[in-house]
């Protein structure tokens, strides 16, 4: 292997045929074997998580821990605005810029609806309740966004407000290890708890 025959040898090694063979081999290795192996091991180790983290109540699949659902009835906690209508096959955000008049118009409508439903001024509305999520299926709201809904839910369900408030505090998930992520409430889980449904993974 000397410097002088480098050029001749390069021709054979860089032939079209070896390029094609290498392409096929790496498609099978990286696109076939690798995902197959990981998917197999993942499914074995994490059977609940690997198929979409579904939760069931009374034997029926009622949703996924990870996927938000639309709620509009007054006896439920409501989630965030969604540009995808909470359809996981159409995920996405509004993609409207702060300078876009459509964004202002939508936020105004949402803000007024919340002021009416919850009987509070706009200065008490947590911003996540009028901002559409990036995925369109955000399963969470901020703890404050849950708290402002407590009086309405208590009234609709004819139960004491402090009971709803206590439920919220039990459902608040803090940042992981006190550092990573934001405090939040899973809307589907807290609504299942409100219904007294015994859900399981």
């Amino acid at each position, binding site marked *: *292997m000397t410097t002088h025959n*480098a*050029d001749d040898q*390069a021709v054979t*090694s*860089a032939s*079209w045929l*070896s*390029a094609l*063979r*290498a392409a096929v081999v*790496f*498609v099978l290795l*990286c696109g076939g074997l690798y*995902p*197959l192996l*990981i998917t197999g091991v993942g499914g074995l*180790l*994490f059977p609940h*998580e*690997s198929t*979409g983290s579904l939760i069931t109540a009374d034997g029926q*699949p*009622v949703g*996924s821990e*990870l*996927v938000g*659902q639309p*709620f509009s*009835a007054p006896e439920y906690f409501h989630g965030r605005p969604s540009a995808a209508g*909470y359809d*996981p*096959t159409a995920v*996405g*955000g*509004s*993609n409207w*810029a*702060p*300078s*876009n008049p459509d964004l202002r118009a939508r936020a*105004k409508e949402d*803000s007024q609806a919340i002021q009416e439903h919850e009987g509070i001024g*706009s*200065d*008490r509305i947590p*911003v996540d309740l009028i*901002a559409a*999520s*990036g*995925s369109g*299926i*955000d399963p969470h709201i*901020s703890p404050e966004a849950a708290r402002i809904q407590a009086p309405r839910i208590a009234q609709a369900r004819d139960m004491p407000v402090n009971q709803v408030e206590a439920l919220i505090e039990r459902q608040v998930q803090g940042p992981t290890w006190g*550092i*990573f*992520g*934001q405090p939040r409430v899973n809307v*589907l889980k807290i*609504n299942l708890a409100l219904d007294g449904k015994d859900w399981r993974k």
Partner: protein
Amino acid sequence: MNEVIIIYALTLLLAWPLGRYIAGVYSGETGMGGRVFLPVENGLYSLCGIDPGQPMTWQGYGRALLKFHLMLGLLIFGLLMAQGLLFLNPDGIGGMSWDLSLHTAVSFLTNTNQQHYSGQASLSYLAHTFGIVTLQVVTPAAGMATLFAILRTIFGGRDARTGGSPEARVSVGNFYQDLTRAIVRVMLPLAAVAALLLASQGVPSTYEGAQTVQPLDSNVAMEQQEIPVGPVAPMVAIKQLGTNGGGWYGANSAVPLENPTPLSNLVETVSIVLIPAALVFALGFFTGRRRLAQVVMGVMVVMSVGLASVAIWQENMPNAAFSSLAAEGPNLEGKEVRFGATATALWGSWTTQTSNGSVNGMHDSFNPIGGMVPIMDMFINVIFGGVGVGLIGFLLFLLLAAFLGSLMIGRAPEIAGKPLETREIKLVCIALLLQPLLILGFSAVTLAFPGLTGNSNPGYHGISQVIYEYTSAFANNGSGFEGLNDNSIWWNITCAVNLILGRFIPMLAPLAIAASLASKRTAPEGRGSLSLDTGTFGLMTLAVIVMFTLLSFMPVLILGPIAEAMATIH
């Protein structure tokens, strides 16, 4: 704030040993798993009919790389068009149009992962794994291979054959050996670990079809909710690690199925910068020039922290559209509650500093100056940069800085003891100037015919959307101001042109420069030569990068994000 500092520290701490390991892999050390991996590699070589010991000239290396990519591209282009007729398609998804297939194949072949479609609805499991995942493993490996070919040629690593031979006879290594080592010893093992971590957090890993559930609130119009799943975890892991960025779901890692928890977000964020940062450390170990690696890392970290701070500060400011409609808070439009503004702004910065392009929030809805940061990151494109190609791009700026610096102190320009002459500087200029030429040229044409743009936002932000798309294509990034209606023949074809030129010219021109330098007589580095491994030279390189970027792109930044920011201040 603590979150950001910890993520930076953790990433660099992990990158250091990984860099050492990768340098070992390319120095041919058999330790550290070599005994396990070597038989696998030898098996692959014989399957492909390749002799890994054959040296290649830079032209031979480039030809092997291009032929291999062309074959892969043709296979996967065909797969995308025919996926509707093939197996592993439980949700019955049809084939793609020719122009969308072309754009998608080119986009993944160039390590860009710009997506003009929504993955969960447009790709079968077969296309997702055999097509997309393959390219997500192979293309960063090709970047890494080329980087080490260049390093060993310029700085004289193990395989370099230097010493006054004509450029056409300088061996730069063997492409298939460099490629296979990156795939077998680096990409696949790391991806396997990350994929299992993600699966534990709830990223789906199954070949079953979509799940269907009945929503709880009977008051709403939705009767059934269809939840697409699939072998998502292995794809998301390599998408993050290989500066790929193309996700399973349309809204990428904002989607809770692709990024379920703050812990999965931590794993995915660290994975964005891990390998590009490790390669900078590997530069030091591989060439024995540790101080040069420190200088390069210093310049990259300064740019990274500076720009990320602007994005984090801006996204923690209120969205102008919400003023007086809600309590004051950060800009949460297009962001997820579990991550919040800070983690999303950090991700948005890193994903564009590395040519990754995945997102965990929508950049289109960032505040104007917050959204300018990703664009600036992609203009620069060498703050960490793509796997392999980021450092290759940085070396171009290093050459330019060495050239200018030498002239400033009145020396004949040289690098590592080799004279920098007309041929090298011409190639540097071609590789660098192609970027503003293509991005600004295509943007100007597209904006001149408003029917072509497909904007979702009016005014200045519409300009930003077009600039973002071409910048992202040329930078091989793949993120977007995603409101843009970009699945048209115009966008698919023009982006494909940018993708190919933006990938292969900045990769192969430096390889030619390296071979050209290696063919020259080495003058011993003495007191008179410019030393690359000092803080002063680092500052010089930083200044060259900043000035080059601002001179090329300042006017267009003013027309887009800066004008938008001024207009939203009341």
